[in-house]
C-alpha cells in the first residue's frame, strides 16, 4: 500500500473515531434524552448481547436473505430481459418507451399493488425488492448489449460462431462492466426495500426489529439494528467492488 493511500485510510479512520467520540459526548452530557439517544457504549453492549444471547443474528440473516433473494431474482430477470432487448434493434425501439414510463415510477407506488396481490407475505417482499432492484441492471444490460463493438460481431460471423457462443463469449463479457455496475447500484436498492418490506409486513429481519425496538423505547437495541444495517450496506458494497475489480482486470491493465 502506498503512503498516500495509507494517509487517506488513517484520516478517514480518525474522522469516524471523532464522530463516535462526539456521539458519546452528547450522550454523556444528556443533551438528548437517553430514552431516545443511547451512547455508543450502550449501543455496542446491546449489539454484543443481541448476538450472544439474543436473536440479532437470526434477524441479520433474515434481512440478508430478503435482500439476496430479491437481488438475485432481479439480476437473473434483469440481465436476461436486458440481453433480449439490447441485442435487437427492433426490440429496443418497441420496448424502450414502456421502460421509460416504468423506470421513474417510485417503487413505493408499487407496494400497495404488491400487497393487494400477495398479501403481507415473503412473496410480496420478494416482488417489491426485485421490482425495485431490477431497473439499474435492466437498463445497464440493455445499454451494454447495444454498445457491443460491431466489429466483434463480424469476427463472430467470419468464425461461424453459434448464437449462444456469440452471447456468452462476446456480448455478455463486453457488456459485463455495465452489468456489474448496475448490480452494484441494485444492491443498495435491495437493502432499502428489504427494510421497508420488513417494516410494512412484519417480516422477520432487522427492519422489523428496529421498528419494534423504537416502539418499546429500547433505544440501544434500535441503534444496534441501525448500525448492523449500515454494516450490511457497507460490506456488501465492498464485496461487490472486489468482485468487480477481479472480473474486470482486463480493463484496468496496461496503459
Amino acid at each position, binding site marked *: 500500500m502506498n503512503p498516500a493511500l495509507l494517509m487517506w485510510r488513517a484520516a478517514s479512520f480518525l474522522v469516524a473515531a471523532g464522530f463516535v467520540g462526539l456521539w458519546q459526548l452528547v450522550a454523556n452530557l444528556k443533551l438528548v434524552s437517553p430514552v431516545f439517544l443511547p451512547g455508543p457504549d450502550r449501543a455496542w453492549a446491546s449489539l454484543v448481547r443481541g448476538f450472544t444471547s439474543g436473536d440479532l443474528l437470526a434477524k441479520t440473516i433474515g434481512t440478508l436473505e430478503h435482500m439476496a433473494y430479491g437481488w438475485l431474482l432481479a439480476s437473473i430477470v434483469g440481465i436476461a430481459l436486458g440481453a433480449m432487448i439490447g441485442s435487437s434493434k427492433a426490440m429496443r425501439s418497441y420496448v424502450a418507451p414502456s421502460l421509460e414510463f416504468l423506470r421513474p415510477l417510485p417503487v413505493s407506488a408499487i407496494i400497495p399493488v404488491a400487497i393487494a396481490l400477495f398479501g403481507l407475505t415473503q412473496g410480496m417482499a420478494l416482488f417489491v425488492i426485485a421490482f425495485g432492484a431490477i431497473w439499474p441492471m435492466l437498463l445497464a444490460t440493455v445499454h451494454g448489449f447495444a454498445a457491443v463493438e460491431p*466489429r466483434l460481431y*463480424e469476427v463472430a460471423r*467470419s468464425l461461424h460462431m453459434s448464437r449462444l457462443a456469440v452471447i456468452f463469449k*462476446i456480448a455478455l463479457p463486453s457488456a*459485463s462492466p455495465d452489468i456489474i455496475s448496475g448490480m452494484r447500484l441494485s444492491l443498495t436498492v435491495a437493502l432499502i426495500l428489504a427494510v421497508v418490506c420488513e417494516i410494512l409486513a412484519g417480516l422477520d429481519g432487522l427492519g422489523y426489529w428496529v421498528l419494534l425496538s423504537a416502539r418499546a423505547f429500547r433505544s440501544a437495541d434500535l441503534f444496534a439494528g441501525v448500525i448492523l444495517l449500515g454494516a450490511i450496506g457497507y460490506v456488501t458494497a465492498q464485496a461487490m467492488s472486489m468482485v468487480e475489480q477481479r472480473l474486470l*482486470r*482486463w*480493463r484496468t491493465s*496496461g496503459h
Partner: protein
Amino acid sequence: MILSATARPHPPAAAVSPAKAQIAFSHVTLDLGGKTIIEDVSLDVKPGEFLCIIGASGCGKTTALRLAAGLYQPTSGDVTFDGASMRAPRRDVAIVFQDYGKALLPWRTAAGNVSLALETIGMPASQRPARIDELLHKVGLPNHAGKYPAEMSGGMQQRLQIARCLAQEPKALLMDEPFGALDAMTRQGLQDEVLELVAASGATVIFVTHDLEEAIYLGDRVIGLLPHPGRIGIELTIDLPRPRDQLTTREQPEFLRLRRELFDFIKASEA
C-alpha cells in the same frame, strides 16, 4: 489517356478459366445507401496468389474486400469462392481488420483470443494449449500469451489478430490495410513476417493498402481502383524475384518503374 496506356493487357490473369480461380468476382456491382460503390468489377484470384489492391481514399477498397469476405452481398453479379457463391462469411476465409483494437476481445488474453477461433472450430480443450503456443510463436509473440490486448503495442495486437486468423486454418486471408496504423519499422518487419507465413501456408491473399511500395513489395499482382464508382483502373503483374528483401528489392529498377506507374495512376485517378 494515361490509364489505358499504363494498364497493360495481362493475359495470364485474364485467361485463367473461372473454374481455376479461387476467389472470383464476375460483373459485381454493389449499391449502398442508394449509391453505386462498386461497379462491374470482374476479377479472378488464383489459389496461392498474393493480390494487392490500391486506390485513393474512398474508392471502394474496403467495400471490395468485404464483398470477397461475404460481409456484403453484391447487388448484381456474383462473388464465388472455389466455385461456390459467397452467401455469407466462410470459416476458411479469414479477415484481418485494420482496426485491430476493435477486432480483439479485450477481456481475453492473447492466448484466449487465439483460443476463440480454436473453440469455434471445435478443437478439443486438451489440444488447444499446444496449438496456441505454436501460433503465438509463429507470429512472434511467444512470451506474451498471458497479456491482455490493452497491455500490447499496436504491432503486437495486429500480430495477435493474424494469429487468430491463422487458427482458422484459412485457405484465403483478406487483409484491409492491416499495417496502416503502424510505424515504418514495425510495418516492414510485419510485411516480411506475412510473406513468410503466407509462403508457409500457401494461402491466397487479398491485401488492401494505400501504400504503393507496400503493394509492390508484397504482391504477385497489384490492382488499382478508380473512384466513384469503384472499378478496376489498372492491373500490374509484379515479377520481382522472391524471397523479397527490404533493401535490394526496393532498389531494383523494375520496382522503381512499377512504383512510378502506380504513382501516375493514383495521381490521374485523383484528378
